[in-house]
């Protein structure tokens, strides 16, 4: 099935002042499309986590929203630095967040596991020096 709707949101590294804006727009979009409350909740949580990850950990990237009749997909794509050990990054409590992020209350090491928990399907690809792509899909019940 071809992708029916796609929106791209650029996210700058370290841009705490606008962090969460893409998530707010994505939530509004899904509410207007009439996506059910439980799906909305899962997307909201995962979306904010992934957007914050781009701000805190990446060298900048983008968040892509795709809506198809049977699912919503969120793709986070960045230009680096890449994750050396994905297994470790997926462990609850593990975090490489810097001091600035930690003072803001981030970096509890729950980000990636939390995304995986909320998505129907979760995929992460990363190469050091190249970048990370996270793909999450959320099934829309008929």
């Amino acid at each position, binding site marked *: 099935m071809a992708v*029916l*709707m796609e929106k791209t949101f650029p996210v700058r590294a370290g841009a705490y002042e606008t962090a*969460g804006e893409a*998530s*707010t727009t994505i*939530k509004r*979009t899904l*509410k*207007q*499309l*009439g996506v059910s*409350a*439980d799906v*909305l*909740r899962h997307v*909201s*949580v995962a*979306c*904010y986590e992934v957007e914050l990850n781009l701000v805190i950990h990446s060298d900048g990237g983008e968040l892509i929203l795709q*809506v198809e*009749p049977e699912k919503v997909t969120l793709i986070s794509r960045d230009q680096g630095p890449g994750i050396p050990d994905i297994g470790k990054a997926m462990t609850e409590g593990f975090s490489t967040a810097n001091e600035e992020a930690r003072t803001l209350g981030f970096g509890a090491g729950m980000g990636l596991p*939390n995304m995986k928990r909320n998505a129907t399907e979760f995929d992460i690809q990363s190469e050091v020096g190249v970048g990370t792509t996270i793909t999450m899909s959320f099934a*829309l019940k008929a």
Partner: protein
Amino acid sequence: MEETKRFHSVRLEKDKCRACTNCLKRCPTEAIRVRGGSAHIIDERCIDCGVCIRVCDYHAKVAVTDPLSIIEGWKYRIALPAPSLYGQFKNLKNIGQLLNGLKELGFDDVFEVARGADVVSRAIRERLKKPDIPRPVISSACPAIVRLIQVRFPDLIDHIVDIRQPMEVAAMIAKKEFARKHQVSEKEIGCFFLTPCPAKVTAIRNPIGHEKSAVDGAISVLDIYGPLSSAMRRAPEDETLKTSSDFGVGWARSGGECDAVCPEASMAVDGITNCIRVLEEIEDNRLNGLEFFEGAACTGGCVGGPLNFENNYVARNWIRRLVDIRNAELNVDNGMMTKYQLYDSRRIQPNSVMKLDDDLLEAMRKMERIEEIYATLPGYDCGSCGSPTCRTFAEDIVQGNAREMDCIHKMKEQLKVMAQQMVDIAETQRE
């Protein structure tokens, strides 16, 4: 007040409306449009928060309430004063004086909504012991916030505590106690809420989590303020009518409910735009460890209600003087928890008015059209077209409720093109 399917206390008085953009721009659910030289309210979207009443310089937005004379239709009349009423009087010696003043006005008895708040506080404390409600548990006290969640945060409905509002609980207890004490039928007793806001009036007409309201009418604080002030001068000061605790009275202002139910892990937010911001955070799971959220649509909480007489900061201060939260005690026994119908009897439903279409594919098509139109608009969000923002204007066009030329900036562009065409025509004819 006539019974309609979608009753609203907030109304527009057309002849006073100057078609400015004050209310248009401030409505939290984008429920107002200016069309044909006057504002109008989209019924499905309005949550009766009263923001438009407060911002209208021409007093064209009003709240429909019951006149004091409504009580004459009842054999026995009980006044239910909102806790925020206690904050309306300078030099109030004690609450007893105010309650006795109400009896002077023709009420047979007075039952404090603050006492209802005591019972509700206890019920919420019990609910917070159960882990099955998603956290944070959201207060159901402000009907405008509950309706805001129905419209803008349908995914947070499960967080709303399933306990009725203090005024409902107060009316139930008041009727039962009065009927027993005086050996009369409950049907002959009318309970009247003295209301600081239109949202409560609507909640009486159209209850959200249950069928019929136990409250029989709502009288605006503004309407009762004058008569009550004079009545209080001749009223005794004895406190026998006062049964509420300082916790219940504290509900008058933002944070009072938190104090009473869960001071250690709660958050109180006042003002509807502030509430929207924090609800967004709750939606994103950003507020870990938060047990209870109290949101009030009005600044300062109920003391900020648009039907109050006193400025909300002043009223808040009077309330602060009347209560001593540190030494307050909630005096509600176990019997109260089972004797009355404190809990909602039906699920709160989402209000899907934001949805562009029932069919997902059609909704997507409409969204695409909205994006296309939005890209051609100036982005001034000036409101001249009659829609609150350029984005809502694009939505209105796609939904068939506005035309592109309603935008004065687009119209100007179009005129420029037409003027140039006329010049061109004129010049060709000269040659």
